[in-house]
């Protein structure tokens, strides 16, 4: 019988009612009294010198309050990069200044050149058209290989080249690695592209800056996944404001997928301009702006080589990747192709030697940073594609080849720095074979062939590393932040509970799932527990939501704080029952003395905490509020196996996804309904990457796919119903809930299965196609079939 309350139950989401009735409170729904509006004049060329900007005509336009250019921001800091990667020679990454408004040079289409603040948005837009720019065009650098070539135009004149860093990870000994390849019985090599994507949460970004002259306090309303991080970065590195004078509020946020982690120029601008203009300043991104100002994702070009011995054991893996940084370093950009990618290259396999080489490159494109999975999809895609290619070359069964090389003993220390605490890759593969009905594939293929279609089956495994930590280790690796989280549990006199959490919910359903945990621990109804998030003015501290960390890191902090609450409540109960607190038990909201029939209710204890008439005041403070910070001992390691079945139309090259099956191990699960939904969404995005999506630039640095007319988002008829199973559960060993995180798995695990399935379909039709780069559009598939 499924539970209807507490951990493991699937209560209906409490946040849904407001979203379903139009009562959500998204940032653009907020209007501050007296606010002005800003329109950003953005660069329409990728690389140019700004010779002059004449704003005089624009300033005379109706409603204009003030016009800002780069000169207005000369005295403030640039946007900081949150991770300093040390290169293979021990040198720091090259780190250019990242200005709020272009400082004399335009480096990508979409960069802010000027900002017009006016009474209305229409007036601001009209005035922006009257700004006269005198630009000196410079050649744009778009292709990464060209950017690294001798004599390339530099994106940043003050840097030595377009190379951000040249990094090696795993085994750095080139000769030893080469020796492993020289002695291999078989080597499979694959060159591939991990296509550049745009996260495209459905809610475009919004920022509203406000300033109170009376109190010298600032408020920034923003569409962020981590308001405390934004406050810290903006105050300490950009605007030089005292942190305690700045409140950052991220209310209902309409999806993030990584793109709303980062501190963006528009946030700092609106905060700065609110002070400069003496009134609130609001910016709402259009979708067209979002395409050229939200950080993009992926954009890796990789050569991967897999060595196998005569028995098909993996003996060595070597990768060489170029990763695009775009024109500036976004907040976590440099960590994505390095520590979030290289550390995952062992995958689910006991390959003894792994060497990862990564060059990150500046180009005249929008900055690139984390997008759902962030480095882990790139690692998984390479690995699971090269294994599939190897299986085909060797005539081996792709499932058997994977099984043969699985890690089966835990904990397992990989050659790329991680220690996997738990997992059972055999179990998830067994489950996948059942869920995906592998046995029935031959019949389904025969049916497709009868209808003139090629049918393919593709499989892959994945490992994810969530809840990046601990802080002291990531600090040694270059992180410029701690990666703990915090929670404050405030119990009211009447026994209701407010939990102030540092995680941020923007689709993940924390408002439903987090109270399930606290309610179960205390034994009270979930309706008595609310969480508060997304406001630095209410939540003491928090690091936000990204990297599938919320329940594993912030949830753990919440458990620790609740444990402190329970410990104190037991002391109060012991006093009320004249017993020793060691003898007090808490169950179903009742405190009892072991071995007696004495009891007091949760509400009696909470009331006593706030009305301490009969209370041990000499030993215990009144009140019932506790905070915990939780810094995990290790990452968590969700894993799984995915299978995709496609039909390919041989006449047109169109691919349709006929089945998609997922078997995941997320450890313990708080709310199975929400977990299913997270996987579904990740699968939709992964299928989108595999078949549809591509942020394509031309050689001049113009983004060709810069609207929903041109950038192919997955739509309802592009995807099937998914089969999702998470019954394989190996709990995490080092956090109190045994949870692992589930937010990114779907996006990490699905692209290789799709591509593997398409290759399988084409091969079944006698086409000797071994690889097609994503997205597998009809044109690309048809060309590969007929090439």
């Amino acid at each position, binding site marked *: 019988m499924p539970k209807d309350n507490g951990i493991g139950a699937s209560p209906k989401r409490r946040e849904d009612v407001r979203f*379903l*009735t139009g009562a959500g409170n998204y940032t653009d729904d907020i209007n501050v009294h007296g606010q002005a509006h800003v329109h950003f004049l953005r660069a329409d060329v990728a690389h140019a010198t700004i010779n002059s900007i004449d704003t005089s005509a624009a300033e005379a336009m109706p409603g204009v309050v003030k016009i800002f250019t780069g000169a207005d921001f000369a005295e403030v800091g640039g946007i900081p990069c949150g991770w300093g990667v040390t290169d293979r020679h021990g040198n720091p990454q090259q780190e250019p200044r990242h200005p709020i408004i272009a400082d004399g040079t335009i480096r990508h289409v979409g960069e802010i050149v000027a900002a017009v603040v006016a009474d209305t948005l229409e007036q601001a837009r009209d005035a922006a058209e009257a700004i006269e720019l005198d630009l000196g065009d410079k050649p744009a650098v778009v292709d990464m290989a060209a950017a690294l070539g001798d004599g390339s135009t530099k994106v940043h004149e003050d840097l030595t080249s377009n190379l951000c860093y040249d990094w090696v990870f795993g085994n750095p000994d080139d000769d030893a690695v080469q020796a492993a390849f020289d002695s291999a019985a078989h080597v499979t090599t694959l060159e591939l592209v991990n296509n550049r994507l745009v996260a*495209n949460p*459905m809610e475009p970004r919004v920022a509203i800056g406000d300033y109170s002259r009376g109190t010298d306090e600032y408020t920034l309303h923003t569409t962020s996944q981590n308001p405390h991080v934004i406050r810290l970065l903006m105050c300490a590195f950009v605007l030089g404001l005292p942190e305690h004078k700045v409140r950052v509020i991220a209310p209902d946020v309409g999806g993030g997928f990584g793109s709303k982690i980062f501190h963006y120029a528009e946030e700092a601008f609106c905060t700065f301009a609110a002070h400069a203009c003496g009134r609130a300043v609001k910016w709402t991104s259009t*979708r067209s702006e979002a395409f050229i100002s939200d950080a993009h994702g992926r954009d890796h070009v990789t050569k991967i080589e897999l060595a196998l011995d005569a028995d098909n054991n993996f003996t060595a893996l070597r990768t060489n990747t170029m990763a695009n940084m775009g024109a500036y370093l976004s907040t976590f950009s440099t960590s994505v192709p390095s520590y979030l990618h290289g550390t995952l290259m062992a995958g689910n396999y006991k390959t003894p030697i792994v060497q990862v080489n990564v060059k990150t490159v500046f180009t005249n494109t929008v900055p690139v940073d984390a997008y759902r999975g962030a480095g882990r999809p790139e690692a998984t895609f390479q690995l699971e594609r090269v294994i599939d290619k190897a299986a085909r070359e060797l005539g081996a069964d792709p499932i058997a080849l994977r099984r043969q090389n699985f890690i089966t003993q835990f904990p397992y220390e990989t050659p790329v720095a991680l220690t996997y605490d738990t997992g059972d890759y055999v179990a998830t593969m067994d489950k996948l074979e059942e869920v995906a009905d592998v046995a029935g594939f031959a019949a389904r293929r025969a049916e497709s062939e009868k209808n003139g279609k090629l049918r393919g089956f593709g499989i892959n495994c994945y490992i994810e590393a969530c809840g990046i930590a601990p802080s002291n280790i990531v600090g040694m690796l270059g992180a410029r932040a701690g990666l703990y989280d915090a929670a404050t549990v405030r119990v009211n006199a009447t026994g209701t509970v407010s939990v102030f959490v540092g995680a941020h919910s923007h689709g993940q359903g924390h408002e439903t799932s987090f109270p399930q945990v606290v309610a179960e621990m205390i034994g009270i109804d979930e309706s008595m527990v609310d969480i508060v998030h997304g406001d630095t003015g209410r939540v003491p501290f928090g690091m936000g939501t990204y990297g599938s960390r919320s329940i594993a890191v912030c949830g753990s902090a919440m458990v620790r704080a609740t444990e402190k609450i329970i410990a104190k409540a037991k002391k109060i109960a012991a006093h009320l029952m004249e017993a020793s607190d060691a003898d007090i038990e808490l169950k179903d909201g009742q405190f009892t003395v072991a071995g007696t029939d004495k009891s007091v209710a949760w509400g009696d204890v909470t009331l006593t905490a706030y009305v301490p008439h009969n209370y041990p005041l000499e030993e215990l403070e009144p009140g019932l509020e506790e905070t915990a910070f939780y810094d995990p001992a290790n990452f968590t390691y969700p894993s799984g196996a995915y299978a995709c079945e496609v039909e390919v139309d041989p006449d047109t090259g169109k691919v349709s996804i006929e089945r998609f099956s997922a078997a995941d191990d997320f450890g313990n699960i708080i709310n199975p309904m929400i977990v*299913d939904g997270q996987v579904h969404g*990740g699968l*939709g995005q992964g299928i989108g990457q595999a078949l549809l999506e591509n942020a394509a630039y031309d050689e001049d640095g113009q983004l060709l796919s810069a609207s929903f007319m041109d950038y192919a988002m997955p*739509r309802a008829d592009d995807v099937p119903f998914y089969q999702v199973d998470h019954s394989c559960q190996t709990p995490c060993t080092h956090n109190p809930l045994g949870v692992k995180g589930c937010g990114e798995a779907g996006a990490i695990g699905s692209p290789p299965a799709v591509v593997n399935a398409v290759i399988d379909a084409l091969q079944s039709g006698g086409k000797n196609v071994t690889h097609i780069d994503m997205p597998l559009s009809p044109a690309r598939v048809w060309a590969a079939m007929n090439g």
Partner: protein
Amino acid sequence: MAKVSMTVNGKAASGDVEGRTLLSSFLREQLGLTGTHVGCDTSQCGACVVHVDGKAVKACSMLAQEAEGAEVATIEGQANADGSLNTIQQAFQDHHGLQCGFCTPGMVMSAAALLKDNPKPTEAEIRDYLEGNLCRCTGYHNIVKAIMAASGQDVSSIAAE
């Protein structure tokens, strides 16, 4: 500026608008009906779908003045008279057909328009009808399932849960 008058969710509404003011802006900025969301500027995402004279319309692709005298229905007017969720809204909650909630108003309004014309749509018909509504969170699985459930179909055999 010109005066525009219409009926919104059964109540008379009017305001002064520029010729270029979109229906979506009028609803959001002048009437404060912020449940109608704007997710793009190319009429692709469908977050702004409302009903105008009973037909589903993307409010970003219609000028406010074009709605002069029309009957407009938005997400704010969809709940039952007692404030409880209507059948479609309830199905979305029951089947986890929403996550961040931003596309949701448009999805619910599109689903209502579909079910009015086609009370028992097949999965394929639902997917086809939702061509003009983008969701980035759900992978569409639970949205399609919720609409099938709202139409009274048995969805217990659909995978996952």
